[in-house]
């Protein structure tokens, strides 16, 4: 058995797989303040879910807290792990878009699944999960309702600002102009897609992955609309990094 633990900025994920790369168990928790503790907890939860003992299980840790997982056998960056995870599901040249809590990454691979290049968003939160959280808070919409609201939108409006603070101001003026909440929320998701398109050309087969897209299906629709073609979705996008880490544990 092989385990991958992805200590992300907002959630910590664990996935255990067997020799045939099939999922045996998984678990997820909010990361919170103690990285060691949460890593330990998700691991134990996944183990008990599968009725396993930790002995003999190889563990690879990834994510921003990867160095805090003291029981891991080795570490690997989330960039390599997302790539590995996505390539397993879609073995061809890919452009991988991982929208995470604090950063968004774009990774391009060749047909063998090797990284050609990758980019992270600049320091601003625009285009990341943190951005959506901030805007949800400002608009007084529970985060989990953002996706549903956006899906019900019938009118397309534009939000163009480059940074989180300016977007918030832009939203205020949309509210003043009498735009509906659901249309503004959809436009906010639309701005996430725009930020991504500015990072690198999205060529070939595009995979959208990470925790944020797992909870906000609308992002698939919007990206497909922007690109005019299908966007690939890995099973359990939130766990792609942990899955990739487990695959590294196997190597």
């Amino acid at each position, binding site marked *: 058995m092989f385990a991958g633990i992805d200590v992300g900025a907002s959630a910590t994920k664990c996935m255990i797989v067997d020799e045939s790369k099939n999922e045996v168990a998984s678990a997820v928790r909010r990361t919170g303040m103690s990285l060691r503790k949460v890593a330990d907890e998700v691991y134990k939860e996944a183990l008990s879910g599968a009725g396993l003992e930790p002995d003999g299980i190889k563990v690879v840790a990834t994510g921003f807290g990867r160095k805090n997982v003291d029981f891991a056998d080795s570490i690997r*960056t989330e960039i390599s792990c997302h790539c590995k995870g996505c390539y397993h599901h879609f073995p061809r040249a890919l452009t991988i878009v991982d929208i995470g809590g604090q950063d968004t990454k774009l990774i391009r691979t060749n047909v063998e699944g090797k990284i050609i290049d990758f980019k992270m968003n600049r320091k601003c939160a625009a285009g990341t999960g943190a951005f959506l959280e901030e805007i949800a808070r400002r608009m007084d919409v529970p985060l989990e309702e953002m996706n549903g609201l956006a899906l019900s939108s019938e009118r397309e409006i534009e939000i163009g600002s480059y940074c989180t603070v300016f977007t918030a101001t832009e939203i205020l003026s949309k509210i003043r102009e009498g735009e509906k909440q659901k249309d503004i929320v959809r436009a906010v998701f639309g701005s996430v897609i725009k930020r991504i398109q500015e990072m690198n050309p999205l060529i070939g087969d595009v995979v959208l992955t990470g925790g944020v897209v797992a909870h906000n299906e609308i992002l698939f629709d919007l990206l497909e609309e922007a690109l005019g073609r299908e966007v690939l979705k890995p099973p359990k996008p939130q766990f792609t990094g942990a899955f990739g880490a487990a695959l590294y544990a196997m190597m």
Partner: protein
Amino acid sequence: MEVLVAFGFKVYFPENHSALIGARKIADDYIPVANAVGYSPEICSYLTSDIGAYLRNETPLKDAYGVSSIPKPDVLAVNTNQCRDLYEWFSFFGRRFDAPVFSIHPPKYLDEVEEHHVDDVAVQYEDMIARLEKMTGERLDEAKLKEAVALSLEATELWKGFLDTAVHVPSPLTFFDGTIHMAPIVVMRGLQIAVDYYKQLKAEMDERLENGIAAVDDERFRIYWEGMPVWGRLRKLSEQFVDLRACLVASTYCNSWIFDDMMPDDPIRSMALAYTKVFVNRSEPAKERYILDEIKRFKADGIIFHDARTCPANSNASYGMPARMMEDHGIPTLTLDGDLNDLRCWSDEQATTNIEAFIEQLEER
């Protein structure tokens, strides 16, 4: 520099002062002070650090050398071969100290430096010399100028010799060593002391080569650094690369102080050529050719571009160069967002992960 040395001036470099502020991680105390009086956070953070420190009446020279303030200049001399910011920075001090600012403005972004470019700059040198003569009441001593140029040339060749030892696999030095040892070639050109310094340094490198001493144990990857150093993170970055067993073998930045076109017999024209030819002042294609040659010469596995927020002049990640390096030449590239001095533009978290992932990318190639 050489002209000033020939006139017998003691030369002080604000750039060096700023690098010191950056390396001491105190730039963030001073940049906002300059911002507040109208110098934008988006312009050169050398400028804003230095002007901020001056306005606060503080200097790291106090701790280092017991010097309580920067010296009062009689004259400010500047060449805008790197950028405009330098000129604006010197002009600030010109106003403060009521001292004249003499400047050389070479033609910009040249693909090749041609005769007429050199003519233009040589005339500007002559003009500057005439002004200095008027100001000091003394004629320029040509023998002294030739001597200064000869010493510059000698120092610059030794400096190149030092940097070039990194061609060797494994390299006996890293970019970080270069950033520390470059001070004399920047601020002591034209003086014997720079020559003596680099003779000693070069000898040490040759000894390392002879004994097979590598800068990075078990060197696995060799990387070219493009852009300014992140002065406040020299140690942290150098340790990370050592841990990853990767060596930053060469950089445009350190190479930029090789002025091997200097000719003591033709001091003015050769200075005009050498200082106009600098990398920063060149066209994109010229820069691209230069980097490609260096990558080959130093057998680098990839390039890291440092996109310094406040120094567009020295950030070559902005006009598509990394993409061209990768797509046209198949060289793996990584771009780090950061800054020379303004650490508010730098994220340790992102940089660490980016560098680690880049090494993983090279591992799996």
